């Protein structure tokens, strides 16, 4: 998309001065950015940098102490921080999706894979068992889970499979914005690579916007258009991913980039 | 030739008649009097009053007799009776600081103003069955001394003077009454305390015990346990002042708990509170532990997932009248629903077997 075209578009998400404090300690402070439809934003930093706090505040899991999170809803731009909880929950079921670091937090472990994927469809009114099952099988295929696993419970899946199931469950209704918290955390390297490839394909195919929190620079290199580097709760650098990673300006970013093992 | 079984009415009448006979037992044995129960089974009477939420020792004693000693059945009788009573008004809050104590101990200090008074307690008895009791003799009079008129201030009031323990919120608002309004969750501390004081002693005891064993992390000290009588006063608008309408015996327990790692406050002790009708120590102490466990949110603590921290779990299952009613209702006929299940299972089995045969 050309820069000019972007300038005429409404941002999907506009964040201003977002801050969260824990007593005297800073969770995150003065975070601001715009996210456009189809853009993927990576948020990197070490543990304690504030990136998870930021994601929780954006997704409505935590109430920030200050700031606005303006989402372009079906009724126009609305500050989700000020929204009633019911409205925020509705958003979380339709336009938003949240991929948890631990797939067990984002799945119903006692429900079959098909039921897990079908739930959002049923929540928005799908009433044909055959079609729901068909859509579930289709999505299982897209996340590379064999169709004959559709009736198995997630407890019978490997960690990588559970994560892919969680992704299918979230994307089946075509949300516009996906929050991802360390989506490859806890997976071994080859499984990670496969997952990242899958995510990249799905994001492009579906024109998703996403905000991905990770400590792994390889993830942002592969998935993110833009990058925010956080340290001590503040954003110390942001810009295009390749620019930031190839030509880091802030001392901390330089440290991060240089400490990644080159294998 | 099958004839539908009738006679439910006659069966019920006969059952009640038999019940009355069993209640009386062997007629050559003297009948228990309500007064005997009130005097000699006072702790049972206390429990029935506490969980029945009605202070009337005579009625509680009658209920125990009618219930053949089944205390939950007796509590049920008192609760049902309470439903029919008219509400005349509300008393002012009782002043436990003015309590005429017969028992008062503190585990937090060796000695303190008001003293450590053991009172009529089982605590230091050796639990040896006393066969002399079976023989029924006269009990020797216990030694007496004149009652001290010295004030018995609360330990927590003394700790509070130095800011060592958190101050309880005070207010003049009338607390809600959970027997008049349905309990909605999440609820407030006054309603939690109401629910727990009339909750089943065994359940509250187990919940409290669980917090001591690691399901929740409150380490409790009994700051104060006091038993005695307090005056009950009512404001009479026509008179313009309040009038004492009677006395009740109460057990009050305040626990002192360690408070770690607050977000904004330096360390302070925190409280748990228990208040029960009659001399009902076990319940009062248990109540204060459970109260403290349920306060995790307002004290900024972590929810460790302990059952005693789960407000919904504790409050929804504490009422033994609700619990026993629902438990025992499974004795009622359910054959209509069972028939539906039977048909379903038969159908599923038919289909599964047919499927199996077709596969072969």
């Amino acid at each position, binding site marked *: 998309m050309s820069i000019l075209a972007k300038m005429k578009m409404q941002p999907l998400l506009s964040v201003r001065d977002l801050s969260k404090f824990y007593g005297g300690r800073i969770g995150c402070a003065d975070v601001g950015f715009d996210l456009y439809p189809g853009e993927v934003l990576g948020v990197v930093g070490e543990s304690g940098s504030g990136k998870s706090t930021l994601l929780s505040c954006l997704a409505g899991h935590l109430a920030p102490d200050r700031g606005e999170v303006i989402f372009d809803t079906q009724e126009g731009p609305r500050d989700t921080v000020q929204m009633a909880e019911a409205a925020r929950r509705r958003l979380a079921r339709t336009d938003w999706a949240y991929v948890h670091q631990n797939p067990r937090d984002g799945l119903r472990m006692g429900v079959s894979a098909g039921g897990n994927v079908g739930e959002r469809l049923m929540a928005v009114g799908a009433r*044909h068992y055959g079609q729901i099952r068909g859509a579930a099988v289709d999505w299982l295929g897209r996340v590379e889970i064999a169709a004959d696993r559709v009736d198995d419970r997630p407890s019978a899946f490997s960690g990588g499979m559970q994560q892919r199931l969680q992704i299918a469950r979230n994307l089946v209704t075509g949300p516009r914005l996906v929050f991802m918290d360390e989506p490859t955390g806890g997976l071994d390297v080859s499984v990670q690579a496969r997952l990242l490839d899958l995510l990249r394909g799905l994001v492009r195919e579906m024109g998703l916007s996403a905000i991905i929190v990770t400590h792994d620079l390889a993830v942002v290199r592969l998935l993110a258009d833009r990058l925010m580097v956080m340290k001590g709760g503040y954003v110390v650098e942001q810009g295009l991913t390749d620019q930031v990673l190839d030509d880091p300006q802030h001392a901390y970013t330089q440290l991060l980039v240089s400490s990644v093992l080159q294998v | 030739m099958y004839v539908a079984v009738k006679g439910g009415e006659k069966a019920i009448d006969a059952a009640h008649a038999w019940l009355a006979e069993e209640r009386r037992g062997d007629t050559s044995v003297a009948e228990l009097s309500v007064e005997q129960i009130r005097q000699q089974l006072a702790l049972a009477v206390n429990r029935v009053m506490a969980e029945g939420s009605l202070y009337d020792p005579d009625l509680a004693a009658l209920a125990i007799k009618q219930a053949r000693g089944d205390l939950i059945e007796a509590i049920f009788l008192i609760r*049902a009776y309470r439903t029919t009573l008219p509400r005349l008004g509300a008393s002012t809050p009782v002043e436990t600081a003015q309590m005429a104590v017969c028992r008062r101990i503190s585990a937090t200090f060796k000695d303190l103003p008001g003293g450590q008074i053991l009172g009529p307690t089982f605590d230091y008895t050796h639990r040896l069955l006393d066969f002399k009791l079976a023989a029924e003799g006269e009990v020797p009079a216990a030694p007496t001394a004149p009652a001290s008129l010295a004030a018995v201030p609360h330990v927590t009031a003394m700790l509070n003077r130095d800011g060592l323990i958190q101050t309880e919120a005070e207010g003049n608002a009338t607390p809600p009454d959970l027997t008049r309004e349905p309990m909605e969750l999440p609820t407030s501390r006054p309603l939690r305390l109401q629910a727990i004081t009339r909750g089943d002693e065994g359940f509250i005891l187990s919940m409290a015990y669980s917090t001591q064993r690691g399901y929740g992390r409150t380490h409790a000290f009994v700051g104060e346990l006091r038993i005695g009588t307090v005056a009950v006063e009512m404001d009479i608008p026509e008179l313009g002042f309040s009038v004492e309408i009677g006395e009740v015996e109460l057990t009050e327990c305040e626990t002192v708990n360690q408070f770690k790692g607050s977000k904004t406050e330096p360390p302070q002790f925190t409280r748990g509170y228990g208040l029960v009708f009659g001399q009902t120590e076990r319940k009062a102490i248990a109540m204060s532990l459970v109260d403290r466990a349920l306060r995790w949110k307002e004290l900024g603590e972590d929810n460790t997932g302990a059952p005693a921290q789960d407000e919904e779990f504790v409050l929804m299952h504490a009422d033994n009248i609700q619990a026993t*009613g629902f438990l025992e209702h499974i004795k009622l006929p359910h054959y209509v629903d069972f028939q539906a299940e039977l048909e379903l299972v038969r159908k599923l089995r038919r289909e599964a077997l047919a499927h199996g045969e077709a596969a072969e």
Partner: protein
Amino acid sequence: MTDQTAYNFAYLDEQTKRMIRRAILKGVAIPGYQVPFASREMPMPYGWGTGGVQVTAACLVPEDRLKVIDQGADDTTNAVSIRRFFQRTAGVAVTEATAEATVIQTRHRIPETPLTEGQILVYQVPIPEPLRFLEPRETETRKMHELEDYGLMHVKLYEDISRHGQIATAYDYPVKVEGRYVMDPSPIPKFDNPKLGGNAAIQLFGAGREQRIYALPPYTQAISLDFDDYPFTASKADHACDLCGAPDSYLDEVITDDQGSRMFVCSDTDFCASRRAAGHVGPMGAPSAGAAEE
């Protein structure tokens, strides 16, 4: 000691009845919505019909004629006990004939005889929350109703079909009321569900222990949940009544000897007796005295 005759009409005091009626009115105004109410302790245990009893007590007037059934029968012990309670505390006339009753309190069945305008059917409800066994927390289920977030309900039906090939709920089968609230119709067999919608009578549901009242005003839409390709069926045992021959009433299975012989009889005793009095005879029935043999 309190005298029996000192109780108010139908046991409850007027304030309490007023409170319950307000809850009933709210329920009738929002069909299928569970209205919280401050349930009173009654002289029978929670779980044994106190919700139904409180609703009935709030509705009764001295001119009413009351019918009480449990499992469809007037003479099961709990029905007897509740009917006696109202005879003692309200002195109302009682009847076993569905068509003659003005108020019917029921546990686990809807009468076979169609109800008419002006009748009130009061259901005893153990667990009012249709989502309870999927989500134990009341705080969550309240939000789910508020947001019409019933995805989990359909997930359960989906799981049934994937595991058993059909929806495996035989009683307590949830319905959607007027396209808005999902409601638990109490543990009536699913055979009775079609009678819920478009019923000429007022249907009131009382859950004493759980402290909820809800309602279906007359001619309200109540649709049993299903999938388009797995539609709801109101099934029953594939028999006719052995006493009266009725082919389409819900049946009780009775084991008649220890060889496993069984017979099926109408669960609705009034319905069966009326049919037999009119001369209908089933395969194992004897003609009713004074009626012509068919």
